[in-house]
């Protein structure tokens, strides 16, 4: 089971920010968006395709344009290496037929940046790899 805590978010941020494709496809992705994971909410602040900050300390100082909210179970399936059918994509989960994820707010920003957004969300599937590497490094 994935624990979506600060450590996980930091690892995801590192993965996205070290990705070689993001600076190109995310060049104009400067916006904040909200990730709702069960009852917990995080705001991801994007600056030119890089994650500038992720915080769960939400206030009027942490504006966001669109929100992706889903039950924890949806995100747990989404981040699996081989996600099961209907959980491999945010649009799959959000499709009106399935309703496993809700898109709210200014979704125009989402559609404008859908390529980079989809790419960086797929990076969530590499977070486990990074943690394994870090644990091994610690043991050595």
């Amino acid at each position, binding site marked *: 089971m994935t624990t979506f805590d600060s450590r996980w978010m930091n690892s995801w941020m590192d993965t996205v920010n070290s990705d070689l494709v993001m600076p190109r496809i995310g060049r104009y992705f400067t916006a904040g968006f909200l990730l709702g994971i069960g009852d917990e909410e995080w705001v991801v602040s994007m600056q030119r395709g890089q994650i500038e900050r992720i915080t769960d300390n939400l206030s009027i100082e942490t504006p966001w344009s669109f929100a992706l909210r889903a039950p924890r179970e949806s995100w747990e399936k989404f981040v699996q290496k*081989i*996600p099961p*059918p*209907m959980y*491999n*994509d*945010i*649009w*799959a989960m959000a*499709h*009106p*037929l*399935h309703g496993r994820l809700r898109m709210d707010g200014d*979704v*125009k920003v989402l*559609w*404008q940046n*859908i*390529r980079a957004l*989809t790419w960086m969300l797929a990076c969530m599937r590499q977070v486990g790899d990074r943690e394994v590497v870090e644990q091994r490094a610690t043991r050595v």
Partner: protein
Amino acid sequence: MTALHEPVTGRYVYVPHGGHEYRIYYEEAGDGIPLVCLHTAGTDAREWRHQLNDADITSHYRVIAFDMPRHGKSIPPVGFEREEYRLTATFYSEFVMAFCDALELERPVVMGSSMGGNICLHIALNFEEKIRALIAIEACDHSPGWYISWLEHPHVHGGEACATSVYGLMAPQSPDEYRWETWWYYAQGGPGIFKGDLYFYSVDHDFRKLNEKITGNVPLYLMTGVYDFACTPEMTEATAQKIKGAESIIMEEIGHFPMSENPVTFKRYLMPVLETIRGVGSGGGA
């Protein structure tokens, strides 16, 4: 050095329909029973390149894949700039048959995916005497939810938005190179064409009260991948149960674009169907 060529030939044919003379591009390979392949919404016949190059198929079938008007190399009719494009079941089914007539195809098999699968139901209903068999891939009687304004919006990059919106319809097991090739096709559609096709796919195509009217005289195979979230296996199976004689085949580890996202996996399921249609073998499925 001898250049490497594929055994595929591309040509243009003029198809008269509804007062227009449509200049239609098609590719073909092989000899035998005509097998007309229909592409998905917003893209073109390049999706069928693997099947056009597969000698196991082309040794028994004349495989023909054409670009619908406004798609690929088939230019739009004169005056398109003044119209909002919305594909309808009537135009689509009649145009497929007009294309078959133009090529003088005798009782072809029609195989289509997504909107090309859904139209097979209309062809079964209205043109059964002219068809040998129908292979409806990723099809069901009603597939709502895809007629979305963001797919044609001046503030949104149409190519990236259309292509990325369908990327997740493919299975994670499908090879990256073929998934991104399918994404590429989608990135190249004309403005508003994907959305206009989806008018048929999600709005005009409502076959729920028509399933029982199909006679069953023409073999109908409904093949759906488990990663298709637009037309799920359950939706396909429910439709097949309502249509006399229809057979549903559920494909593991594949999504909404079997022919282009994973031609190897798709072939395992397709070959038994093609063998049955030509009178060899005992049934569909892998």
